[in-house]
Each structure stands twice: as C-alpha cells, then as structure tokens.
C-alpha cells in the first residue's frame, strides 16, 4: 500500500471535487496530518455557454473540474475543516491541453488530454505549490500507489484493477515520487465510497468522471471544428492500403484509427481506418487485419527508473488506458525515437496515445506513440476482441 508518513506532516491534497480526492483528504485528516486542499480551475465553463442556450440538467455531470466540482471541493474542505485554495490555470490549460488536443486531431492523431493535463498543467503546478507552502507531500485521489523498492520509490498500479489509473501518471518525475501520496490507491472503489459516506462527504455518491472535461456536451469533432482555424480542417482523399482512390473524406479530425462506421465507402469487405496521413491529408482504409501490428515508434519518453536498464528488457506495455498490458520490448534509436516491439500484434495502435511500460505492477515510464508505420507488413488477424472505448481520469 501507499506509504503514509508516520509523523504529523503537512500535506497538500489536489481536490477535484470528486469522491476519490475527497476521501484522500479525509483519510489524511483522520491520520492527524495538517491537510491543505487545492483545486485548479482549468476552464471557464460559464464563459463558453451562451446565456440563451438552455442547459440540459446533466450537461456537465460527472466531468472533472467543472464549476460544480469546484464548489463540491470547497464544501468537502469545509466539512473536513481544512484550508482550501483555488488557482486559476485557465490560460495554462488552454495552451497546454486544449490547443494540443485540437492540433493533434487536426493532424490526424488521437490525443489523450488527461495525461497531457497531468503532464503540462496539474502535477508540477501542484507540486510546486505544495513545496512553496513547505509541505512534505502532495496527495491526489488517483488509483495508484508509491512503494519503496531497492532502487527508490516506485509507482505501481492501484489495488483496484477496475480503477487503476497508473497509466495516467507515467509523466510524473522520478524525484517527485518520494513526495507523492495516493491515499486511495490501496483501496477499492466501493471502499472509497463507503469511507466518503462514513466521513459524511457530499461527494460520496457522485458519479465517476466519464468524459473529457472541456468538451462537455459536444462531440469531439464539433469541439475541434469550433476551436481550430478553418485552414487546418480540409477534406481529402480516402484510399485503400494499396493507394487506390476510394472517395473523399471531410477532415482528418473526424476519424480515428480502428474506426469502422462513418466511412461512407461501399465495399464488400468491412473497411476500417488504418492510418491518417497528415502530409497527404488522406485517410487510409483497409480490412480489419490491417489494423494489427506488432511494432510502432514512440517519442518523448519519461522514465521512472534508470532508462539505461530498459533497452531490450522484456516489459509489458499498454497502448491505451483500457488496453491489456502486453509483452513488449523497447530500444532507443539515434533520432530520439524508440522502437517498440510487441510480442503479440496489437489492434489499432493509435498515434497520439500514450505507450506506458510496466514491469509487473510497476510503471517504468512511457512515451507518446508517434507512428505505427514501420517496415513491417500487416500481420494476419487472430481472433481478438474489438477496440474498447476510451475512458479518462
């Protein structure tokens, strides 16, 4: 389990207004620590909704960091009788997360804004704030754990396999792990809810976050179209894997690798999006078998162990949050990219998603999938499950 400090410590808790971070704060308070709650306001929801537009009752339900969530965080802090501070990070969030999200879609990639948010906005802001306040630890409500290993503090998966969020945390800095607490990481979700109820926290029955917080009730496509410069989003050709022209598409941002529906192409065999080529602005489609590859290139790795020890070592990798960890090896190239080789072919390796590397339950690091295109030919289709839906934390 996550090692809590023994003596009374000053701990800053990142409070999102959800049940997990509420309970994280509550547990630390019960343990007798000096707890300080901090929330980040990332997005001004009020500004984006025109007064004339009727709001559906649940349009912001279960997202992370909405106005209601901030109020929930404030209420929980009052209930726990801890000081609570709020930071306005709208500008940083827009630059680091929203603009990246839009750019990635426009380039035919499928971004993971939640990891980006942890990486570019949340974690270092909160850690810096905590250290500025002379705090000993920063705590969050993630389902992950930090344990001491022979080579230092290790990030490992949360005890609840259903809720494990270690995937989202691969961008943490190794030096920060020793100062990071995940008080609910050793618990299962039902236990967390029960604890919230026991502590009388208003967030006990609040639904889990489900969606990208800033997109709200819109589809991703609509959001990208609203935010991106017109020149970024252009129609172009749909071609098959041999380069044969099949028709027109209406913008790369409308497609994602592995997608089947909505291609508008008449074909005897089911067609899937195999690749999105930003250079030629084309959508490449093919049979499902073309989606399966056993290698890819990844970049911008962050390591939570000594990176010289990973090359060629048998590891497990996850190519998206809800994917199963699967045997993999990685090898650095001269150009800063890394070769990634999977033992078993993976379906729809998607540029823009994170590749997170594990050794058993320990997160060793991760990088961003750059391309699934290599010299290798597509492999044959084994009997495999379909693409699971994305979730975010």
């Amino acid at each position, binding site marked *: 389990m996550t090692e809590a400090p023994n003596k009374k410590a000053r701990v800053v808790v990142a409070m999102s207004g959800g049940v997990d971070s509420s309970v994280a704060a509550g547990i630390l308070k019960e343990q007798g620590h000096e707890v*300080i709650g*901090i929330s980040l*306001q990332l997005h*001004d929801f*009020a500004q984006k909704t025109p007064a004339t537009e009727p709001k559906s009752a649940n349009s912001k339900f279960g997202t992370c960091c909405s*106005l209601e969530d*901030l*109020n929930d965080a*404030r209420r929980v802090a009052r209930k726990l009788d801890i*000081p609570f*501070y*709020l*930071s*306005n990070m709208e*500008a940083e969030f827009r630059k680091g997360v929203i603009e990246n999200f839009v750019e990635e879609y426009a380039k035919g990639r499928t971004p993971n804004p939640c990891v980006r948010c942890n990486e570019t906005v949340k974690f270092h802001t909160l850690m*810096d*704030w905590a*250290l*500025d*306040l*002379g705090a000993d630890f920063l705590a969050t409500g993630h389902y992950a754990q930090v344990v001491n290993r022979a080579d230092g503090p290790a990030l490992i998966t949360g005890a609840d396999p259903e809720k494990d969020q270690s995937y989202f945390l691969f961008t943490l800095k190794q030096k920060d792990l020793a100062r990071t607490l995940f008080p609910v990481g050793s618990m299962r979700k039902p236990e967390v809810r029960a604890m919230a109820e026991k502590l009388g926290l208003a967030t006990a029955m609040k639904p889990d976050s489900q969606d990208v917080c800033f997109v709200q009730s819109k589809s991703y496509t609509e959001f990208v179209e609203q935010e991106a410069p017109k020149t970024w989003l252009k129609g172009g050709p749909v071609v098959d894997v041999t380069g044969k022209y099949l028709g027109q598409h209406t913008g790369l941002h409308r497609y994602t690798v592995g997608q089947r529906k909505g291609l508008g192409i008449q074909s005897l065999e089911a067609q899937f999006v195999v690749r999105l080529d930003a250079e030629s602005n084309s959508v490449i489609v093919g049979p499902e078998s073309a989606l399966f590859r056993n290698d890819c290139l990844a970049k911008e790795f962050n390591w939570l162990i000594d990176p010289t020890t990973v090359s060629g070592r048998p590891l497990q990798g996850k190519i998206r949050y809800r994917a199963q960890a699967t045997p993999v090896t990685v090898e650095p190239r001269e150009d800063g990219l890394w070769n990634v080789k999977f033992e078993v072919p993976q379906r729809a390796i998607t540029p823009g998603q994170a590749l997170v590397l594990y050794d058993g339950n320990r997160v060793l690091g991760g990088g961003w999938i750059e391309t699934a295109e290599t010299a290798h030919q597509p492999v044959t289709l084994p009997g495999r499950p379909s693409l699971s839906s994305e979730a975010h934390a």
Partner: protein
Amino acid sequence: MPRAIYADYNGTTQPSPEAKQWMLKAMESWGNPSSTHRLGQEARGLLDEARTLVAKACERNLKDVVFTSGGSEANTMALWGMALSRPGLRILTSPIEHSSIRGTLAGLNRLGGAFDMVKVLPTGELDWIDFLAKLDEFKPHLVSLMTANNETGVLLPIPEVVREARARGIIVHTDAVQALGKVSPAFWNGADLVSVSAHKIQGPKGAGALLIREGLQMDRTHFGGPQETKRRGGTENLVGISGFAGACSALKPDCAERVGALRDTFERVLSERLEDFSVIGGAAKRTPNTSNLRFPGVSSEVLLSALDLDGLYVSAGSACSAGSLKPSPVLLAMGLSEAHARECVRFSWGSLTTEDEVIKAAGLVASHVSRIRERRRA
C-alpha cells in the same frame, strides 16, 4: 496559530460596536417604516435618524441620501437611472472602475447610449490630457470616475474632474465606496451622484447609498412602493441601514492619518527586509490604507495561501464566478502584463490595525517571499 492579522479592509471590515448596537436597536424596532401605527412610527424615526447620520458623514443634504443594498446597486442605479432618463446618453468613464460600472455600461447600447474610456497612466492616475480631449471630442453627458481605486488606492482628481465637467454642463458620478472614511468628503462631494457602502467602513454588508444632488432629473430603476422618495421601492432594510448609520457615527477624522502612518511603516519595514518588490501606484496619491505590491517571481495565489496559513489575510486579483482569481483588470489597464499582474498582492489596513501587526506582517511577507524565491531558484 497566533491571532490572525487582517489586511483586507478594502475587501470588507469588521462591524464596529456602534454598528452592531444600531443593528440590534433596529431588530427591536421591527416595525415597517411605512406603517402608520406607533410601531411603524418608531421604525420611521429610526430610519430618519439613520439618514441624518449618513448624510452628515458624507456632508450631504438629508434629501440626497437614497439607501441601496450597497455600492454595486448604487453604481448601477446611478448609471442606469441616468441612461433611462436621457436616451442616447454618452458616458465617459475609466477602465479601472468597479465591475458594477463596467457591467452596467455593457448594457448601455440597448438604451441607445454609448461610452468611452479615459486612459489610465502606468502610475494608476488618470491621463488628464486624454480626459480633457475626450470631454471635447466624445462630448459626454455624464462622467463616472471612482474617487479611490479599490486595488491600488490611487486617487482620481475628482475636484478637478467636477470643475471641468461643470464648465461644460456635464453631470458627474463618483464611486466613493473606497474613499468614505479615508478621504475627506470635500474631495468627492462636488459630484452630482456619489456611491457609498456600509461594509467598507465597519458597517454591515447589504447596505449602502446613492447620494443624488437635489433636483437632478433621473429615472426610477427600482419599482414598488414610494420608499426612498420613489427612487427605490421595497420595504427598507432597516437593520442594515441602521448599521450603516452606526458605522458612520463612529468614523473618526484622524483615523486615516493614523492608518496612513501604519501603511508607511509596513512598506518601510518590508523594504528593509526584502529586495525586489514594487509598490503599484506608489508614485501617485493613494488612500492612506492601501499597499498593492508586486513580488517578481512569486505567484500571488501561492503567496496568498502561504500568508493565510500563517494567519495574515490579504487579497489579490479579481475573483471569477468559481472563486479563483483572474489578473486584475485594473492592473492590466495600468499596463502591467498578465504575468506581472499575477504577482501582485493587496494589503489594506484599517482602524483596528496596530503597529505591531504591520511590522509582523512585513516580516511574514519578507520571509515567505524570500523562501519561495530561493526554492524556485534552486
């Protein structure tokens, strides 16, 4: 934790014993001032007494005082009432006004009106050349300029503004919410319309007044009964109004001078213990209680929380709907970048402040700012 030090008097103030006493009295005289029976008469008597005290503190005629729910309502009433009574009203104002002024202006075009902004100098002062030019080019019917800025304390030259406006037949409104109790009424009292608020002078929240020069033609903005000479319908908030009166009765003319000396001590002690900070609006004439300080390299949000944990209550920026802080529009109007505006913290002192407190506060600020800077450099 040792006793907290309150340095946010521009935000609000602790109700004075006199204010509380008057409020208790009003809770006991709970009649409706409009009722004709004796209970009503008693309440009406209290209301009249309160009006007398507020008028006296503001050095205005009794008839000028229209009680409102506070400064924001007084500002809205002044601008909106003028705009309703004069279709096509042109208002000259500044970019450092309170949000209630800026908000009301945003709706002005619905009434066929228009507004323009006088430039503000980097010192926080009014650009006088621009003011004179706009008087003649924009030809406003109404000038609305605050007496003292809430964030920097910088004073605008209301006597000169009134002189120039009057010479051109222009009506003047001033938001004196931050000036009452700190600056002599003679300074702002030439204006035709003046907004004041109770909770900035140790009165309760929810009470204020718009002072309206007798005979000024202005449309009604609040409907209901004939209360407040038919300017603001609705049964009077007698408890709040009485608290306002109690606070006015306790205003001491020498308080501003004493607080000014404490503010200067605070800034001096801080400059002895800390390098590299600047006083926003420091080159201008300021209300004697306000120090807006910029600490390069230190986020105001972080500093605010660090000081709060050590029991020093200060403020920064302007709160958005969620309660987080945005860079202050006042500081941006003075030409600060967003990044610099996010390094500014406001210290505002008041009648209960002691010398011991300002010296302690300076020490706390110096040690936190130095520590944060050192850590960030490491």
